[in-house]
C-alpha cells in the first residue's frame, strides 16, 4: 500500500495562492476597519456639531415660545418640547421699572439628546431681558376716546383722581391722571363734570392718541388671542371677589344692570349703554367705538374706559353716568392680558 503525504487518499499540492489570498483579505479587512473607524469618528464629530446646533435652535425656540405665549403672571419656570429637544425656560425678576412694569431675565436652556447617546446631551443656553407690563395700556386718562370732540354734559361725571385707597394694591394710590383724553376738543356743558390732572388732554390726531395709550388693540381683538371668556359671560357670583377676568364680546354690546361685573371687558364693536341702564363695572373697558350716552343712565365705571383704538371715532357725547379712575381695578384687570415684551438688543448666549 502506498502512503501519500497530506492525508489518506489526498495529495499534497503545497499551493501558496490560498495563503496569499487570506493574507490580503486580512489586510483589506484591517484597512477597512481603520477606515470605518475614522469615518465613524468624523461622523460622530459632525453629529456632535449638529446636536450643538440643534440645542441652540431649541434654546432659541424655547425663548421665543415663552415670551410669545406668556400671559398673566410670569411663571418661574416652564418646559417646552420643540424640534426634538427640550427647552427649560426660567425667569428672574431683576427690576421693578414702574408700578406696572417689571424687567425679567428670561433664560432658555436647550437640551438636545441623541437617543443613541442619552448620557451625552448637547446643551446651549440663551438669555434675553423682557419687560412685563401688568397693564395692557398706559393709563393716560380715566376716559380715552379718539373722537375729535367729546362733550360731557348733564349729570355725567369723569374723574381722573385715583379712587384706590392706600394699600389696596402696590403703589396705590396712583398719581392722578387726566379726566378725558381726546383728539381735539373736550367740553363740559350744563352740569357735566370733568376733573383730573390735567382736567383733559388733546393730542391732535388719531395716531397720536393711539401711540400715547399704547394699547395692542389688534392683538386683543384677534380671535386667536386667548381670553378667559370669549363671547360668553362669567358667573361673577361663583368667582372670587378678587378675580377680575378677561372677557371679549364680539360685535356690539348694550349692557344692562344684570351684566354688571368686573375685569377686563373688550367690546370689539360699539359699546352702547341703553337709556335707563344701571350697568356697573370695575376694571378696564376697551371698546371699538362708543355710542352716545343718553341722559337717563345710571352706569358707573371704576377703572378705565378706552375707546376707538382701531379706527377713529366720531364726535361723542356723554349725558349721564360716571367714569372714575381706579388704579387697582385697572391693574388687576389688565394683569389678565399682561404680556412679556423682549427688550431689543439684549440677547446673549450664556455660559
Amino acid at each position, binding site marked *: 500500500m*502506498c*502512503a*501519500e*503525504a497530506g492525508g489518506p487518499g489526498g*495529495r499534497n*499540492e503545497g*499551493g*501558496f*495562492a490560498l495563503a*496569499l*489570498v487570506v493574507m*490580503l*483579505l486580512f*489586510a*483589506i479587512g484591517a*484597512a*477597512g476597519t*481603520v*477606515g470605518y473607524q*475614522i*469615518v465613524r469618528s*468624523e461622523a460622530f*464629530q*459632525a453629529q456632535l*456639531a449638529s446636536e*450643538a*446646533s440643534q440645542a441652540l435652535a431649541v434654546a432659541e425656540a424655547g425663548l421665543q415660545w415663552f415670551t410669545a405665549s406668556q400671559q398673566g403672571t410670569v411663571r418661574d419656570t416652564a418646559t417646552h418640547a420643540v424640534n426634538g429637544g427640550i427647552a427649560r425656560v426660567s425667569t*428672574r*425678576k*431683576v*427690576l*421693578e*421699572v414702574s408700578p406696572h412694569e*417689571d*424687567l425679567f*431675565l428670561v433664560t432658555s436652556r436647550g437640551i438636545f439628546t441623541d437617543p443613541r447617546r442619552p448620557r451625552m446631551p448637547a446643551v446651549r443656553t440663551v*438669555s434675553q*431681558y423682557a419687560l412685563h407690563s401688568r397693564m395692557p395700556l398706559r393709563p393716560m386718562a380715566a376716559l380715552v376716546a379718539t373722537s375729535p370732540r367729546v362733550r360731557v354734559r348733564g349729570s355725567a361725571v369723569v374723574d381722573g383722581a385715583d379712587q384706590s385707597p392706600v394699600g389696596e394694591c402696590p403703589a396705590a394710590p396712583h398719581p392722578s391722571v387726566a379726566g378725558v383724553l381726546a383728539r381735539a376738543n373736550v367740553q363740559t356743558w350744563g352740569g357735566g363734570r370733568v376733573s383730573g390732572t390735567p382736567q383733559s388732554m388733546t393730542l391732535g390726531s388719531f395716531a397720536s392718541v393711539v401711540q400715547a395709550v399704547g394699547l395692542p388693540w389688534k392683538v386683543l381683538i384677534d380671535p386667536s388671542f386667548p381670553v378667559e371668556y370669549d363671547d360668553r359671560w362669567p358667573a361673577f357670583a361663583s368667582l372670587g371677589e378678587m378675580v377680575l377676568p378677561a372677557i371679549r364680546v364680539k360685535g356690539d354690546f348694550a349692557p344692562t344692570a344684570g351684566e354688571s361685573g368686573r375685569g377686563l371687558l373688550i367690546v370689539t364693536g360699539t359699546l352702547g349703554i341703553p337709556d335707563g341702564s344701571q350697568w356697573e363695572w370695575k376694571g378696564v373697558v376697551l371698546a371699538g367705538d362708543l355710542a352716545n350716552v343718553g341722559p337717563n343712565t345710571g352706569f358707573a365705571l371704576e377703572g378705565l374706559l378706552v375707546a376707538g383704538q382701531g379706527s377713529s371715532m366720531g364726535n361723542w357725547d356723554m349725558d349721564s353716568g360716571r367714569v372714575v379712575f381706579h388704579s387697582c381695578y385697572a391693574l388687576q384687570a389688565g394683569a389678565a392680558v399682561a404680556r412679556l415684551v423682549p*427688550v*431689543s*438688543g*439684549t*440677547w*446673549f*448666549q*450664556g*455660559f
Partner: protein
Amino acid sequence: MVDGKASPSVQGFTLLEALIAMVLSSVVVMLVTSVFVVQNRFYSQVVNRASLHESVRTAAALVSSDLRGLASGGVVAAEPDSVVIRAPLAMGVVCGVDQRKAYVFLPLGGSAFRADEVSGYGLRDAAGSWSYTSAEWSSVHRASGPGPAGVCAGVGAEVEGVSEDFHRLDDLAGSGALKVGDMVMVFQERVLKIGVSALDPSSKAIYRGRPGGTLAEVATGLSEESGFWYGTPAEQGLRRWVRGRGNLEGVNKIQFVAAGAAPSGRLGVSPSTFQLTVTVPPKNVR
C-alpha cells in the same frame, strides 16, 4: 528498491501543472491587489474629505457662534479676511446708582467667568444704541455679593441664592448720566482672521484671539476663497469691506465663506473641495 520492497510512489507537479498554478495564482494576486489598491484609495479619499469637512464645519460654527450675539457697533474693524468684534460676555441692568457707584445685575456665570477675558463694557442708551468703553474688569469692578444684591433687592430684584450675580461697578463712563434700568454689557474684543496655517503652510486657517495677543489657530485646511462679506440696511446684497470704507455701525449682516480644499494625495487620491457659507444677522442689531 529498498529492502526488496517497492518505494512509495510520490507524484510531483508536471511543468504544465506548475505553469497553470502560477498563472491562476497571478490572476488571483492581481485581482486581490487591485481590490486592495482601490479600497485603499477610497479610504484615503474618505479620510481626506472627512478632515476637510470637519475643518470647514468647525470654522463656520465657531465664526457664526461669535458673530451671533453682536450688538449695534459690535464690529470694530472689517476686512475681507478678518473681522474684529466686541463679543458680549453677558448683559446686565443697572439697579442702583450712587454718584460714581453703579449697582448692577450681571449674570457672569459664576466660576466660569474669567476677569481677564473682559476687554471693556458697553452702556445702552434709550434709543437702543450701545456705547463702548475699553477697560479692565478690575478697574471698574469693586464688589460682588450680598452688598450690591441688597441694593438691587430694594428695587424689586430677586436675589435669593444668586447674590454673586450682583456687582458694584465704579467710575463707569458717563456714570453721572446712569440711571436705574440702563442696560450694561461686558464684552471681549476678539479677532477672527484668515491667515496662512502654521500647521500646514500650504493651506489657510482661521485664527481667533484678542487683538494684539497671540491668535490661536482653530481650524486648518481653508482655501483662498474663504472670507468675510458684510451687509448694511442701506445696500442691497453683501460686499467685501475695505477698512475705512463705510460706517461699521451700520453692519447688520455678516457672511462667512468657509472654503476648504484638500490636495491630491498618494495612490491617485483626487483633490476635493468643500464650501460652507453662513450668513449671520447679529441678533442684537436692529
